[in-house]
C-alpha cells in the first residue's frame, strides 16, 4: 500500500485532479498515465455525483459528461484497474459521501485497498460525521484526507490532529473553480497552525491554475492540488489533449518551489 505521507518527503507534491470517465473510459486512463509521467506525484480521481454541491461549473460539466458516458461506481474501479496494469502512481478518490455509503463503506474501502487507492477526500463528510466510515478506512489502511477551510478557525487543530495521509487546505470560500486572486497571508497562518499539531503534509487546493500561483503557494505548502484547470484542458478535447496535459503538467512541476 502506498504511504501518502512519504510521497511528500522528496519534493513539493503536484496533485492534479481528473473526473473519472470524463469524457470516456480510455481518456481518463490515458490522462492519469500522462499526468503521472509528466510530474504528478498523486492523482486525485473524482467520482461523478448527480449533485456536486462543493464543485463549480467546470467540474459539474465534467460530471455530466461522465454520466453521458454511462459512468457508475464499478466503471470507476475498472478505470483504476486499467491504470494499475501499467502504473503505480499514488491515487486518491474525491467522492461525495453517498457513493461509498450506498456501495457499503466496508466493501468500498476493501476495494480501494485491492486497487492501491491510498485515500479518500469526502467534501460532505466533516470530522463530526467521520465515525461511520473511519473503522473501515483504518482497517484497510485508507487515509481520510480532511478539508480545512478559510472558515475553519478554532477547528483547525482538531481536524489536523485527526487527519491521515495529508491535509487538504481549501484556499477560498465557495466552490471549486479557477480564481485569479488567492489570499496567501491567511493560508500561511492556517498552515502554520496545522504544523504546530501534526507532521502530516498540507496541500492547498481550490482556484489554482497558473504556474505562478503554483510556485507561490508551494512556498508555503507541501503540495498543490489543481482541479478545474486540468479538467478544462480535458473538456476542450481534440486529438491533442494528452500533449496539452503533458505540457501543462510539466509547466506546473517545473515551477514548484524546491
Amino acid at each position, binding site marked *: 500500500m502506498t504511504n501518502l505521507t512519504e510521497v511528500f518527503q522528496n519534493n513539493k507534491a503536484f496533485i492534479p485532479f481528473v473526473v473519472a470517465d470524463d469524457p470516456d473510459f480510455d481518456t481518463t486512463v490515458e490522462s492519469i498515465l500522462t499526468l503521472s509521467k509528466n510530474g504528478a506525484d498523486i492523482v486525485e480521481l473524482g467520482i461523478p*455525483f*448527480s*449533485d456536486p*454541491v*462543493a464543485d463549480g461549473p467546470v467540474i*459539474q460539466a465534467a460530471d455530466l459528461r461522465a*454520466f453521458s458516458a454511462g459512468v*457508475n*461506481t464499478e466503471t470507476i474501479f475498472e478505470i483504476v484497474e486499467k491504470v494499475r496494469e501499467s502504473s503505480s502512481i499514488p491515487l486518491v478518490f474525491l467522492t*461525495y*459521501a*453517498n*457513493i461509498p*455509503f*450506498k*456501495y457499503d463503506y466496508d466493501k468500498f474501502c476493501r476495494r480501494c485497498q485491492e486497487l492501491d487507492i491510498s485515500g479518500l477526500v469526502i*467534501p*460532505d*463528510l*466533516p470530522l*463530526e*460525521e467521520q465515525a461511520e466510515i473511519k473503522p473501515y478506512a483504518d482497517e484497510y489502511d485508507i487515509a481520510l484526507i*480532511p*478539508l*480545512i*477551510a*478559510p*472558515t*475553519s*478557525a*478554532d*477547528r483547525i487543530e482538531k*481536524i489536523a490532529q485527526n487527519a491521515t495521509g495529508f491535509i487538504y487546505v*481549501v484556499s477560498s*470560500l*465557495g*466552490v471549486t473553480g479557477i480564481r485569479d486572486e488567492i489570499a496567501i497571508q491567511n493560508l500561511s497562518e492556517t498552515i502554520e497552525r496545522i504544523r504546530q499539531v501534526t507532521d502530516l503534509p498540507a496541500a492547498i487546493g481550490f482556484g489554482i491554475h497558473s504556474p505562478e500561483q503554483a510556485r507561490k503557494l508551494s512556498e508555503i505548502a507541501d503540495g498543490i492540488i489543481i482541479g478545474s484547470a486540468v479538467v478544462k484542458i480535458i473538456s476542450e478535447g481534440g486529438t491533442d489533449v494528452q500533449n496539452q496535459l503533458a505540457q501543462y503538467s510539466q509547466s506546473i512541476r517545473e515551477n514548484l518551489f524546491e
Partner: protein
Amino acid sequence: MKEMQKDTTDIRKYGQFGGQYIPETLVNEINAVSKAYDRYKNDPEFLAEFHDLLNNYANRPSLLYYAEKMSKDLGGAKIYLKREDLNHTGAHKINNVIGQALIAKRMGKTRLIAETGAGQHGVATATIAALFGMECEIFMGKKDTERQKLNVYRMQLLGAKVHAVTNGSMVLKDAVNATMQEWASRVDDTFYILGSAVGPYPFPEMVHDFQSVISKESKQQILEAEGKLPDMVVACVGGGSNAIGSFADYIDDEGVQLIGCEAAGKGVDTDQTAATIERGSVGIFHGMKSLFLQNDDGQIDKVYSISAGLDYPGVGPEHARLAELKRAQYVGITDDEAVNAFEYIAKTEGIIAAIESCHALAYVQKIAPKMSKDQIIVCTVSGRGDKDVSSIAKYRGVDIDD
C-alpha cells in the same frame, strides 16, 4: 415518543437519520446557528417577538374550519381544515421564516438567502426581508420560475433578487444546491433560511419547532369545537415542513393517526414520481442522512410531480424516522388525484387550495367515506392555490395566458 424519535446520545439525529453532512466551509457557521438557536429557543423575549409577529403580522391563529359540505358530501368522518392558506403571504411558510429571520437578526446578519420550489417560501422570505430591512436573494429552479411566474414577480415586487437555477433538473433540489453554494461563498453577513424540514441539524429541528404552531393551535381548536382529539391528521409532504408542523403536537397522542401525502406524480410505480418514503432508500444528501429517491450507485434521481413544492427527491429526517417507527404513514397521491381534489374543494367549499395541499385533500376524499360519522379528520390546507390556477388550466387543456 420524543425520546424514541431523537437519538439519546446525539441530539443532531433522529435514530439513524439527520446529522450534519456538510462541507467544512459551512461547519462553523452552522454550529453558530445551532448555538444561537439553543440560546433563543426558550428565551422569553425571543418567543414574545416571534408570537407577536405571528399574530399581528402573519394573521395567526389560522382558522380551523369545519368543512361541513365536504363532510356531508363524502358521507363519513367530520372534516376540519387547518387554514394555513389564510396566513399572510398565503401559506404556512411564513411561520418558519419569521422564526429563522429573528435568529438571523440576533446573529447580526443583514442578508437572507433561500431556496424555493413553488415560490411560497421565497415569497415569505422576501416579505420578512422587506419588513426587517434586509437584503434578500432567492434561488429557484428555472423550470419552477416558468410554472410559478406569478410568485417570481411577487418576490421581485418585495425587493428580492430571484436567481433562476439552470443546473440539473432545474427544480427544488437544484435550488437547494445553489443556495448552499451561495452560502458557502458568503457566510459573514448571510443567513440561509431553509424552508423545509430538511438539511443539516439544526434546520430540521428549527423548522419543526417554528411550524409546530400549526398543531398547537389545531389541538386547542379541535378540543374547543369537539371536546376530543381528532382520529386522523393529514398533510402533504415534500421535504415535510407543513406536515411536521401539523403532526408535532400529536406525536405523543398515539390514538391520533398521522398521514403524510407524498407526490406520486404519474404513479408511485412509475419513474415520474416524487414518492420518497414509499420508493426511496437511505442515503446522504443535502446535509442529512434520510430517505432519498436514488439509483443503486447513490446518484440522486430526477423526480417528478405537477406540484413544484413537492417535487423533491428527499424527505426530512424526522419523517424518515416517524415512517421507520410506523408512527406516521405515508401515502402517494398522483397528479390526477391532486388536480381532481383542486377542483373538488373549489366547487364544494369555495376554497382554491394550493396543488401541494390538494395532495392531502385528495387523500381525505378517499379515506373520509370509509370512516364513521363520529370520527374526525384534521387536514392542513398548507397554502392557497392562486399560483396554480394557470397550470391547472393548462393541465385541463385550457389556455388562459394572453
